[in-house]
């Protein structure tokens, strides 16, 4: 049993979820409060990465990010960022692909808060940022949790985009989902089963921990 793909998977899932969390909050905040007319268009665009088959999306990303093409070249030359066949690329691809899973629940959560909470904080001289961090977000915990769980689980299971842009390089971009897929393709069902079982079990306990923490399970018993 090769543990590297599993380690890589959880590294990817954690990094992706963390970045998504940070990126999605301002987007969701804006979408939930703007009265701009282009809001429905942007809301729709956020969901669009889901619509294409992952490998196809991956292929388009490959084309865009390839250093042989204008944008990829610019990234490479000017910023020294190489997004294809690298862990960084996996992260970027996963972030784009899972964006709707984080943005949408947070946006729905923020929309449902009474506006007086925000207003009360403003009249206390608190900035939008402080209000967001200390008042709004802590009161939409179920929605944040939904976003985190969906993004995390989706990143763990994704392999189409990741395979395409990562190139299945052992130790670098070969995550567990690809390893399992390989074994199934190679008809090594026993190996596939044990990978799946381990992936499943670890993720199950991570998510269970998240839910238990959220349900106040640990708090309740620590008092």
């Amino acid at each position: 049993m090769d543990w590297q793909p599993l380690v890589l998977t959880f590294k990817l899932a954690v990094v992706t979820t963390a970045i998504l969390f940070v990126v999605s909050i301002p987007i969701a905040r804006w979408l939930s409060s703007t009265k701009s007319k282009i809001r429905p268009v942007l809301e729709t665009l956020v969901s669009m990465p889901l619509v294409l088959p992952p490998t196809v999306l991956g292929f388009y990303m490959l084309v865009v990010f390839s250093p042989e093409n204008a944008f990829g070249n610019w990234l490479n030359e000017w910023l020294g960022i190489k997004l294809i066949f690298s862990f960084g690329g996996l992260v970027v691809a996963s972030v784009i692909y899972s964006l709707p899973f984080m943005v949408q629940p947070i946006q729905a959560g923020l929309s449902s808060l009474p506006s007086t909470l925000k207003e009360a904080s403003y009249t206390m001289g608190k900035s939008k940022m402080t209000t967001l961090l200390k008042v709004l977000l802590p009161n939409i915990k179920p929605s944040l949790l939904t976003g985190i769980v969906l993004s995390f689980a989706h990143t763990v299971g994704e392999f189409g985009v990741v395979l395409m842009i990562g190139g299945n390089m052992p130790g670098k971009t070969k995550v567990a989902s690809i390893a399992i897929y390989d074994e199934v393709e190679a008809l090594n069902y026993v190996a596939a089963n044990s990978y799946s079982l381990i992936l499943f079990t670890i993720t199950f306990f991570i998510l269970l921990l998240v839910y238990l923490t959220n349900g106040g399970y640990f708090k309740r018993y620590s008092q």
Partner: protein
Amino acid sequence: MISLNLKKTLKSAGGKIDLNLQLTIEKGQFVTLFGESGAGKTSTLRMLSGLLRPDSGTIKVGETIWFDSHKNIDLKPQQRKVGYVFQDYALFPNMSVRQNLEYALQKNQDRTIIGELLEFAELGELEQRKPETLSGGQKQRVALVRALVQRPEILILDEPLSALDLKMRIKLQEYLLQVHKKYNLTTILVSHDIGEIVKLSDRVYELQNGSVIKKGTTTDFFGLNKTSAKFRFSGEVLKIQREDVLYVISVLIGNDIIKVVADRTEANNFKIGDQVLVASKAFNPIIQKI
């Protein structure tokens, strides 16, 4: 001094009100906005505190322009620093009572005010509780003292005491007066309770359909000066009872019921629920503590 000159069309599915308001409030005054439900009292307070943008007009506080539609000035609520007690409390559900208060602290502000306020509002025992486990009245107390934490120059109170029991209400009324004086606050209250208004405020503005229809010092406003010469109470007829040839009319005045004897023709004039004046030319009252 606060000068408000506000125009705003309050839109809604059922109709609209054109709010058109000129108000001047002296620094340090305690004023009350009075008026029917839906008259625009809350909307006025929201415009003053920067939570609702007027269609046009100006807001000037002291020498500072807070809002001017022509000069395109519109200070943010954060810059206006008013203490605002909301009608729905707006307590932060994620914070305990103490944390709600602490959140309102300004940078480098002395923390002792928290303990002081908690103690005063008798919230000491509840300080670790989350808002959802509080009773209605407890929530309202927290909301009130939270607005005082930042020691605002202007304190806005949108029916702050309506859900309180008498004891707590009197206590908080006293405290409101105290802090109003101590911190040299300009306080703007919305209240329907005349006793409360009389007790607390210097001036009253009555709103109707978005305009000030009557204003004056509290005593003038309620015509209380007249009571100095002779005794006169306003009250409400509760019961009209026939006793032999006479009628006894029970009138509720404040929390007390008094009975007035009337003859038949007099009694026929009244029906239950009528607002009445009860007066007496000869009145030498004795006052006694309870």
